[in-house]
């Protein structure tokens, strides 16, 4: 029996929009809230990125060569680090230099392009690779799509771009009672290994860790390592007795969502040692995990998209209501005009394309979600807007200006 444990931390920051009124359309092309973006990035850097990077570096050194982790870092986050907190990039470089850290590939702008525009999707994957190379180092051959959104169609696109593996949400409905820890490939893209997120074990850290009403609170590393060992012990002897546990979560879990005083850093400090006490468990990078999935592994069907968001684990966090759908459609509908503009106005092309891509970042649509609104859920917690409607209005105002810049027909009030 051996259990491959794969940590992957998501690092993402959107370019948040400033309040942009309709009366500014045609007058101001300055859409982003530099002050808020800088403040948030610096705060998260102080509370999470810097202390957690330092801790991981220590842990890698202490347990060398057994402790490994991986990151997926969006280009929008990398560029904000470069602009607002370059010391974070330095710290990530030190981590990468240990050789025990792998970068995942994803879209540059944390977009939903995989669902709307295969061409833009491929370009953003290329842009992300370029941004990683520029700031940190090249990502490996395992892909994670925005918010773990995956489907047969997405898997086919990812395989066509030459990747070996794809991270997905380990949603129960994909497995039909089979073990999430078993090796899988995609029926729609057999070249691609599936790396499923073990949502229960991941969310024990990401969501439940500080929840005092949780039966297992307070969680310590020893007990958590026991749980993982239990997963290893439960592996069936056939198929080589091998299993995979994907512990995928937002990096901000450490210090930002779970504050330092919850003990989250102490938990992580102790976890590798506790886990490595169990012979059956070892840490792997996503590439190592993908390489171990046999070519004749069982396959998964994903007829409809799954994601790691909300209880629904589908795309409804971004396209669940009318205004979200309208906003996404309006944004992607600008693609031909934006590209055409780029051909005609080479000097301004880069800026227009970048502005458009920043508007494709999924967070903007997330702020417009009306799901569970009354319960004051995470959508509103993360949103800089008073309501999903205000988020939509602001977004559409900006989009109206962008449309005017590139000469696209714009919904006019007249």
């Amino acid at each position, binding site marked *: 029996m051996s259990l491959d444990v794969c940590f992957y931390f998501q690092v993402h920051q959107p370019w948040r929009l400033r309040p942009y009124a309709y*009366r500014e359309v045609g007058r101001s092309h300055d859409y982003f809230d530099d002050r808020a973006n800088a403040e948030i990035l610096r705060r998260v850097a102080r509370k999470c990125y810097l202390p957690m990077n330092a801790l991981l570096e220590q842990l890698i050194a202490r347990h060398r060569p057994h402790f490994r982790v991986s990151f997926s870092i969006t280009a929008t986050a990398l560029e904000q680090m470069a602009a607002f907190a370059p010391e974070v990039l330095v710290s990530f470089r030190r981590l990468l230099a240990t050789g025990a850290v792998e970068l995942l590939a994803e879209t540059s702008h944390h977009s939903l392009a995989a669902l709307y525009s295969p061409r833009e999707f491929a370009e953003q994957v290329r842009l992300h690779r370029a941004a990683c190379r520029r700031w940190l180092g090249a990502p490996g051959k395992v892909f994670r799509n925005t918010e773990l959104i995956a489907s047969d169609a997405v898997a086919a696109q990812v395989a066509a771009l030459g990747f070996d593996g794809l991270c997905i949400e380990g949603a129960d409905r994909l497995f039909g009672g089979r073990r999430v820890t078993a090796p899988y490939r995609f029926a729609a893209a057999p070249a691609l290994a599936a790396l499923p997120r073990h949502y229960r074990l991941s969310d024990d850290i990401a969501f439940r860790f500080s929840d005092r009403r949780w039966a297992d609170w307070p969680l310590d590393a020893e007990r958590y390592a026991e749980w993982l060992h239990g997963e290893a012990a439960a592996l069936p002897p056939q198929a080589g007795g091998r299993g995979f546990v994907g512990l995928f979560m937002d990096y901000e879990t450490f210090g930002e969502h779970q504050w330092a005083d919850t003990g989250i850093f102490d938990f992580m400090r102790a976890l590798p040692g506790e886990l490595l006490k169990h012979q059956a468990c070892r840490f792997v990078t996503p590439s190592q995990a993908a390489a171990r999935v046999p070519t004749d592994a069982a396959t998964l069907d994903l007829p409809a998209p799954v994601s790691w968001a909300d209880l629904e684990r589908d795309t409804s966090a971004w396209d669940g209501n009318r*205004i979200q759908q309208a906003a996404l459609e309006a944004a992607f509908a600008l693609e031909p005009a934006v590209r055409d503009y780029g051909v005609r106005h080479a000097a301004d092309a880069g800026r227009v394309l970048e502005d458009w891509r920043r508007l494709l970042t999924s967070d903007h649509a997330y702020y417009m979600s009306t799901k569970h609104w009354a319960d004051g859920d995470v959508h509103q917690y993360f949103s800089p807007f008073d*309501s999903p*409607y205000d988020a939509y*209005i602001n977004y559409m105002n900006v989009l109206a200006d962008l449309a005017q810049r590139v000469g696209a027909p714009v*919904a006019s*009030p*007249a």
Partner: protein
Amino acid sequence: MSMMNDRPVRVLMLGWEYPPRFVGGLGKASQGIARGLADLGAEVSFVLPRFRGRGEETRLRVGGAREWLLEHRAAPRAAAAATPLRWLDVAARLRPYARPQAAVSPGPRAGRGTIEPGDAEALYGSDLGREVARFAERVAAMAARLRVDLVHAHDWMTFPAALAAAARLRVPLFLHVHSTEYDRSGEGADPAIAAVERMACERADHVFAVSDYTRGVLVSRYGLDPARVSVVYNAPDAAELPPPLPLGPGARQPWVVFLGRLAFQKGPDHFLRAAAGVARLHPRARFLVCGSGDMRQALQALAAELGITDRVEFRGFLAPGAVERLLARSSLLVMPSVSEPFGLVALEALRAGTPVVLSRQSGVREVIGRSLQVDFWDHARLADQILAVLRLPVLARQLVEEGREQLARLSWDESAQRVAEAYARVAGIDVAARAQGGAA
């Protein structure tokens, strides 16, 4: 259980407006509570002061008697059983607001005969203090001949009468606050009226507030113990929502509507200031100011100053039927109130399938929380919201859908249930149990 307690609970309810004679939300809200309690099995005697003037008998279809009983037609769903809601009328001269404001208008059921808008002064008399006192005297005198289990009174005009009646009858007193003097007049509150509200609320056994917003005003302005105030939200007219009327450019005019008294606390001036921002960017938008009140001339001057005279229509006071028709043709209702204890007009708009922008300084946002909201002073933001609703049909559609979803959860029966719970908790008077006892 005594003989007495085998009878349905008898409520002496005091009000100053009741459809079809009403000027604002108070009449409808009082009716909703009265009907809801009757539905639950209480016998409600609704007493209100009556102006003995021309047209009134015709309007109420009564023939000149000073005091009468009317078998009241309750909500349609309860029509099968003879409803125990009784109507008494006591002659007294009152005017409902401290200043001349909206005119009384005939309601949908008035049929023949009207009262001219604009004669509010003539209808309600002018010496408010005397009228309140006279109403109190008459109710107290009447109370001597009544047997009731409790007194429930709507808003300050009826509070002296309610105190007198409850004292004479030695029954528990429940006061229902639909608005406070501070909502009506802000810092210009009349100290005498504020004193009546404070004193009455202090003496009452329990107080109902139409929103948590109003409950907060009662606690902060009058120092009431929060435990003695419960929130009872208003509800739409009928439990059944009609199908939404179509939205979109074909079905709706680019009309943005203000509907309410033209008084400081309703924020009509904020409406005009936002309208000026919209008018510059939306050549077809029109702004309809519906209501009458003491700010009309000032508002007309403001519209001129803002350069939007040709875009603004002052429609005056609208009868309820006209309100529905107007809302059904409009693109948006804006409620920019400076202080709005509830805001029934927002529910009426959603009923008609018309989107709304709600003031953050309102009670209705507590029940229509998933909505577009604005601070009344933020004219630029309000203008942007109005433009967006006019420009983006998808937004209008979702606002209406989500608004109506929330609207469907409100009902007068539910609100009356909250009232009955308080009767039971505070005074040990169980409406539902005694309704069954009476039936047995």
